[in-house]
């Protein structure tokens, strides 16, 4: 382990500096928080991902699941990764903790600096000390992500025992505390219960308790509510939000649901076909999207003002084959605004109006043909 004392202390300092950043309140608040982040180069970023490339080596060929993805995350910030299924958002998250199923998956190149540590250079043993302790993970399906043969109390206290060197009793107390924190009534009585004795929503709460057991700096939430009922979804999201605020935990929230991203995140990355298509503050991306794919995503949201008979708007076509992406813009086959240029070269992520607002589109670059 190469983590220094001070870097381990860092999150609380930053959170104190930036009270606005943890308040998902007004547009102003969020913008201010973002600006504060950008104006404080001394405040080290929690996470810097540079040119992350993860590929799957299958019988049919190499799948470019995550291709040269770069983004940053500040202490206490909530970042959304949105996109269709198969766009690489889950693989991105798994890459961050080096849990891409291998074989066939492999992180081919790139850099992941987490709290000053280069994740990809850690030994397996060092990486293990990161997982659970510094980075917690909530998976999509609470029905299958908990071990059916172990009591939930054990599953929560396991990492506390492991990473915090707690005695069995102290770890159990910690587990009870977490269970009540995630809103499970009669927490101590339920420690000995097995996952099948809980409903889906309750299991996801247990999963959150597991992820937060060691008070991590970063919480990766991979579609945490997709498998749940709509009413439960809101409760779980509220819980993630309030606990991340309370603990000052940064969150990467992976979702295909733009509504969730808009309500939860400070910034969002829109991913398409293994790449970031657009990134920026939540309002910039949602109100002033500068990528045709982002427009398509927003457009396919049904609105309350729609006529009842209106059909769902969809983005025509399918995402490209990630086995062999060509040199063209990956969205070009489905884009209404496509030109010859888009079919021969892929645009870079370039700045747009708004702090840290970038988009990968020739058409909306200054001087582009899309207004």
């Amino acid at each position, binding site marked *: 382990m190469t983590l220094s004392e001070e870097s381990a202390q860092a999150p609380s300092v930053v959170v104190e500096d930036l009270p606005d950043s943890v308040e998902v309140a007004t547009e102003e608040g969020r913008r201010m928080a973002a600006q504060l982040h950008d104006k404080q180069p001394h405040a080290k970023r929690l996470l810097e991902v540079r040119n992350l490339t993860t590929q799957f080596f299958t019988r049919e060929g190499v799948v470019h699941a995550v291709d040269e993805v770069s983004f940053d995350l500040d202490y206490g910030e909530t970042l959304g990764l949105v996109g269709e*299924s*198969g766009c690489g958002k889950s693989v991105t998250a798994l890459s961050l903790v080096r849990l891409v199923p291998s074989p066939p998956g492999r992180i081919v190149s790139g850099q992941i600096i987490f709290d000053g540590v280069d994740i990809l250079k850690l030994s397996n043993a060092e990486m293990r000390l990161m997982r659970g302790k510094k980075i917690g993970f909530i998976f999509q399906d609470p029905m299958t992500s908990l071990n059916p043969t172990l009591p939930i109390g054990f599953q929560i206290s396991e990492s506390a025992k492991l990473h915090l060197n707690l005695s069995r009793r102290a770890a159990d107390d910690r587990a009870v505390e977490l269970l009540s924190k995630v809103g499970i009534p009669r927490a101590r009585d339920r420690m000995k219960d097995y996952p099948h004795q809980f409903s889906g929503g309750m299991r996801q709460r247990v999963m959150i308790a597991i992820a937060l057991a060691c008070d991590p700096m970063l919480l990766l939430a991979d579609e945490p509510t997709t498998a749940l009922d709509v009413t439960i979804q809101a409760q779980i999201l509220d819980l993630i939000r309030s606990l991340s605020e309370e603990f000052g935990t940064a969150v990467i929230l992976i979702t*295909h*649901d733009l509504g969730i991203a808009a*309500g939860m995140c400070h910034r969002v990355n829109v991913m398409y076909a293994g790449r970031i298509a657009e990134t920026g503050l939540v309002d910039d991306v949602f109100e002033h999207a500068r990528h045709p794919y982002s427009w398509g995503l927003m457009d396919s949201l*049904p609105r*309350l003002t729609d006529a009842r008979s209106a059909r769902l708007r*969809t983005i025509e076509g399918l995402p490209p084959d990630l086995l062999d992406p060509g040199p063209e813009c990956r969205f070009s086959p489905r884009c209404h605004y496509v030109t010859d240029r888009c079919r021969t070269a892929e645009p870079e992520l370039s700045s747009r109006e708004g702090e840290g607002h970038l988009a990968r589109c020739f058409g909306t670059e200054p001087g582009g043909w899309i207004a």
Partner: protein
Amino acid sequence: MANRTETLPAATVEVRRSSGLWGDAFRRLRRNRLAIVGGVLVILFVFIAIFGPYLAPWPYDYQDLDAVLANGGLPLPAFSPGHFLGTDELGRDLLSRLMDGARISMTVALVVQFVVLVIGMPVGAAAAWFGGRTDSWLMRLTDVIYAYPDLLFIILLSVALKETVFGKALDGLLLVFVAIGLTSWVTMARLVRGQLLSLKETEFVEAAQAIGVPSKKIISKHLLPNALGPVIVAVTLGIPGAILAEATLAFISIGATPPRASWGSLVADGQPWLRSFPHLVIFPALAIATALISFTFLGDGLRDALDPKLKGKQ
């Protein structure tokens, strides 16, 4: 937020090319090298079983006494002229007897699994279909059969009916085959029952019912094809058990009437000669081993190919 949650863009629905359950399964099976080896060997055994009498160098009961006497009354070793795998002490050609044994073993496979299907499928289906009292009585019947020490039942039955017409059919073999089948159908009945019960609960069957598909069509289009995979696998994996049971019985001289000899009785006959003429035991043992392995490999391959749980993971 909540009112905007069901907003999955339609384009996210993944479209996978698929040639249907059986096409997919066959493609997976072809990629499984062990299963292919097993399948080829099974075809070879079946071929020998059907055409063996025309291919064998000698009739299985022909005694080449001249050769044995020339050898001082001892069995001929392997690679003797005219007897590629040697002979026993009576001058009977081992290769020809092994080929006839293949015939017995393949017939066992066929008859036993036929009995298993004919009893096990209806019992299992009836238990699942009628449920209630029928179900519980049929399952109690399977409890009894399950607890019955099967070899004892087979031996008793074959001794009891030995002198009847049925007991003399196929050189006394049919009786043994049917007896083995009578002890083996329980697993199939339970499997079919479990399959049908769980399929009845599945969403696609409920969906079919909801849109008013007639139940006859639900059974033929949804239940049976989906239950068929596990049944095929169980039949294939049940064959080694049947071959093994027959060989074991033959080893203790239950089954084929001499001079007809199954692989098991060849091992028993060769046992006294094991030290000086090990080929008399080794070759029949190899024949049994090859048959057991090839059906097991094929069955394992079929299971992997037909198991929907593994779908999309390869």
